[in-house]
């Protein structure tokens, strides 16, 4: 194993209300592949963003090739030889492969762009990497796998000495992953250091040399891949006591009726043959890592995205849900993970958002009964303790927690019996979180049923009566709260692919 090329020491970074990185250390050597692992929100991405100058660190030192550095932006990092290959492809579909590779640093002939030279250079680059891609091809005509290769080629073309792969395999097929690994092994031989962020345990075992684990913004430790087991890694990732009084057993009676039954739901790659049941008065937690297909399942169920197949039963009756309207009429309400985009109409008032899903109850002939609207909105502002001067306030002016309450009020006004909470407390401060939890408990006590999608282990263990775990678009397990442990859930969520 080669010399150390990059050392990050005591990196500290805080955002308002969050201590994202707490004195984290990291060490990368020439010609190695270092896995960086951790749960959602452990701080992996933040650390890499600090490294490449997207975020400014509060304290700590970065030593690169023996010198202390601090990059102001990704461009500076790139010039120094540190490049990120992103999970989402940052390619411009209309341009050719070569144009994409050299965007922002085109070869010029006078004032004219020298396309021929760009194509030649791209060709040389691909030959070096043993990839078969035509530089003249339009980017959008390539498969996702080939596009990923282009990303890597682009990174290499910067004369990179350190390449960071941020979940590079998320969108790739088995054979494409194999091809990518071939390139990574080649790069290793050229003494290039690589950081590999992934949740896929089997890949980690195959391609990486060492594993550094992070948890809750802290450095936990580093293992030699060859000498450790999957369980070792998971224990390091989880290794924390849940102190926020997790539920020990389900509050739902065994004979509670099934209000919602989903059978063999299919919708693209992210939702494959998902089946589950939801009982009256139950909170059903959906756990899994980022990109496990939980939100996609909820959206397909709600009719927000088209589904390929699958049956849905409400209270034992088969129903057809082709669009959100159908779902709402079936008594389902959906609280999106992205409130600003999908939950609230920001330019409208609290009252108007509250009644958005149930206009029918507020009509006097063809006119909206604004007095009644205000009355109901007032009622929910009080019941949910929403902090707003009055119900005529535009919701854009409310805090995240209070916006979430307005969305909840919308579905309560509609009298929805089944509520899907997608990351209900994301971006909400601790105090407001507890209020939302209390509210959810109250709702199920009143006989509503809740599907709660959450990436926070504590939240899952604290709120759920039962837990469905998903991984790569498939349901990988279902646990009663009494048998659920962090380790079991994490194991299901990172199940190795066959």
């Amino acid at each position, binding site marked *: 194993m080669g010399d150390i090329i990059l050392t990050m020491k005591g990196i500290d970074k805080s955002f308002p209300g969050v201590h994202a990185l707490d004195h984290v250390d990291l060490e990368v050597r020439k010609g190695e592949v270092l896995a960086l692992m951790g749960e959602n929100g452990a701080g992996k991405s933040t650390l890499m963003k600090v490294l490449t100058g997207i975020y400014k660190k509060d304290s700590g030192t970065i030593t690169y090739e023996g010198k202390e550095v601090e990059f102001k932006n990704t461009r500076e990092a790139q010039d120094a030889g540190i490049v990120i290959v992103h999970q989402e492809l940052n390619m411009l579909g209309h341009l050719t492969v070569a144009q994409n590779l050299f965007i922002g640093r085109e070869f010029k002939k006078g004032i004219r762009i020298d396309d021929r030279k760009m194509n030649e250079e791209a060709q040389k680059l691909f030959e070096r990497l043993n990839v078969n891609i035509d530089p003249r091809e339009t980017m959008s005509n390539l498969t996702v796998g080939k596009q990923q290769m282009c990303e890597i080629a682009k990174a290499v073309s910067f004369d990179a000495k350190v390449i960071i792969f941020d979940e590079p395999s998320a969108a790739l097929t088995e054979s494409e992953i194999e091809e990518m690994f071939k390139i990574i092994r080649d790069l290793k031989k050229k003494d290039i250091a690589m950081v590999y962020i992934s949740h896929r345990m089997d890949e980690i075992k195959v391609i990486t040399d060492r594993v550094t684990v992070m948890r809750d913004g802290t450095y936990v430790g580093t293992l030699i891949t060859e000498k450790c087991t999957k369980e070792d890694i998971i224990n390091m990732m989880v290794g924390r006591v849940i102190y926020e009084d997790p539920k020990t057993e389900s509050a739902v009676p065994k004979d509670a009726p099934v209000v919602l039954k989903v059978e063999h739901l299919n919708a693209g790659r992210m939702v494959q043959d998902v089946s589950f049941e939801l009982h009256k008065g139950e909170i059903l937690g959906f756990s899994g890592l980022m990109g496990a297909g939980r939100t996609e399942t909820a959206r397909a169920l709600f009719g927000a995205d088209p589904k390929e197949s699958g049956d849905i039963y409400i209270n034992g009756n088969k129903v057809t849900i082709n669009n959100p309207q159908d779902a709402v009429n079936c008594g389902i309400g959906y609280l999106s993970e992205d409130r600003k985009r*999908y939950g609230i109409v920001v*330019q409208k008032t609290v009252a108007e958002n509250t009644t958005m899903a149930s206009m029918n109850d507020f009509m006097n002939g063809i006119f909206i009964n604004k007095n009644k609207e205000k009355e109901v909105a007032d009622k929910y502002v009080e019941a949910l303790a929403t902090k707003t001067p009055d119900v005529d306030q535009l919701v854009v002016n409310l805090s995240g927690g209070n916006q979430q309450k307005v969305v909840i009020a919308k579905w309560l006004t509609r009298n929805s019996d089944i509520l899907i909470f997608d990351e209900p407390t994301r971006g909400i401060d601790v105090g407001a979180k507890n209020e939302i939890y209390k509210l959810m408990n109250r709702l199920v006590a009143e006989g509503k049923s809740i599907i709660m999608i959450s990436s926070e282990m504590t939240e899952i263990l604290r709120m759920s009566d039962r837990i469905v775990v998903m991984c790569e678009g498939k349901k990988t397990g279902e646990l009663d709260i009494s048998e659920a442990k962090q380790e079991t859930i994490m194991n299901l969520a990172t199940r190795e692919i066959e």
Partner: protein
Amino acid sequence: MANKKAFGKLKGREAMVLGIVIAMVVLFSILSPTFRSYPTFVSVLDNSYYITLMALGVTFPLITGGVDLSIGTGLVSYALIGGYLVVHKGVPIGVGILVCILVGLLIGVFNGVLVAVMDLPPFLATLCTCMITRGLGPALCSSMGVSWPSALSEQGAFRKIFKFTSASGTVIPIGIVFMIVLVVIMSFVLDHTRVGRYILAIGSNKEATRLAGVNVKFYHMMAYMISGLFAGMAGVAYAATYATIYPGSGAGFELDAIGGAIVGGVSASGGVGTILGTFLGVFVICLMKVGLPFIGLQANWQQIFTGIVLIAAVLVDVVKKKK
């Protein structure tokens, strides 16, 4: 109470536009003695009816974040078709008016289907119907100009809807009364009915509105239907005010209406706007069209000046928002 508050919030913009209107009237009156006369006042109103109607309608697509470019050539085309039936096919004037409005509504539905159901960009879809309507009228009417019956003839009574001449010869612009009635009705539609509520919501956040279980396709389409309906009514107003409808004209009329709505505070990116604002904004445009010739500004300068004033009016809004 709720209404009063909502009105209070928007009052700023509307008060500003009203201020501009008053300032323009004062300015033109000082600069041109002939401007400050009753006939000129009537003439400003005369020239405003068809633009007002177009603007009231197009406010709805604008609020959804779209646009309707087909209203200008549309209204000419609808008036041509209606007038052709009356003058050359001998149908009663009432039927002609009805046809004019209904064809407008039909094109509105067509636009709505293109935009809301088939997901074409509004600019593109309505640009195409703009071309279609430009050819439609002349195609159906043998390319002839059509003069609806004049006010003096028996069938010309419909012209009196907009301008009534009393026995003593006094001209009473009663059209403005109808405009005000329509402004009140459409304000009500926008603020107090589901259609208005959802159209505003679509303009503000279409996806969130859809996820609330709203039939967004239908309400999105409604916006274009309203626009088409009002373009049809604008066709009637145009036919009633002017002598001959010329085939192929009308391109550019929509810009007066859209300009008026934008000056009146309708956000070009959707979600925000009031009918009263649009109504007042239209008067800024119309005063300019009538006032600038009166103060002796020559043709080319009128256009330049109009452009500058529009920029100023919109800029005020942008600057205010940045603060």
